[in-house]
């Protein structure tokens, strides 16, 4: 999970993910278009995203195609949203107890 947060903590890498969200299966050359940086730099950013499992790749001949893999983001969502909801429920529960407790407990 550290790798995911690290990978997301960079605007260029988030932009690459946005590009792949817009269109699936882009090659390195296609991804380099609209990116104001060298091919090498894009390759390095993609490697970080791949390592975090946010980008999955498929080789077709000599071409590498890139896909957005949102599964790790979903795991984070599940983990933290669930926690957040639990906290809200507990807060509401405490509030209910406090309000009701004054007359009933």
């Amino acid at each position, binding site marked *: 999970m550290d790798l995911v947060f690290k990978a997301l903590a960079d605007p260029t890498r988030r932009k690459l993910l946005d590009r792949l969200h817009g269109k*699936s299966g882009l090659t390195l050359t296609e991804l380099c278009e609209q990116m104001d940086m060298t091919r090498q730099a894009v390759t390095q950013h993609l490697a970080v995203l791949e390592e975090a499992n946010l980008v999955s790749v498929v080789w077709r001949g000599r071409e590498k195609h890139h896909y957005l893999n949102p*599964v790790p983001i979903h795991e984070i969502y599940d983990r933290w949203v669930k926690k957040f*909801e639990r906290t809200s429920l507990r807060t509401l529960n405490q509030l209910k107890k406090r309000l009701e407790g004054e007359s009933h407990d």
Partner: protein
Amino acid sequence: MTRTEYVYVTYISATPQRIWDAIVQPEFARQYWQHENISEWKPGSGWKHRDPESGEIKIAGKILEAIPPKRLVLTWAYPKDEGNAGETSRVTFELEPIDSMVRLTVTHDELVPGSNMEKGIKQGWPRVLSSLKTFLETGKPLPTWSKAKASA
């Protein structure tokens, strides 16, 4: 027409056989997928993705390849579109052991861009795979399923 595809990957701490069973065994799939997959799991046989409570068939298709516990390829369509090549997509499950984990890759290709099916599976697979991972690693399904069901 140009078709589109998605490639989803998750790493799960479990044996390939357990992950395979989680996909093909109805009583197993029900617990994290809220649906069950019914088939003989042999090339050429049909398969159905069914809501166990209502019995409604949500997706149907044919098994193209089945090599347990490594590779499963099937066609995927709404029951009304079954047999209509234009509305049929394809799903490939690949299970590769890596150290003590399994890399599970789900490739959903031959999708019609902009179709309801494409929209549905884009939301569905991350949720199913995340739920499968949690279920196999902790024994508990994800709460998002019960929530999604309650609001449905």
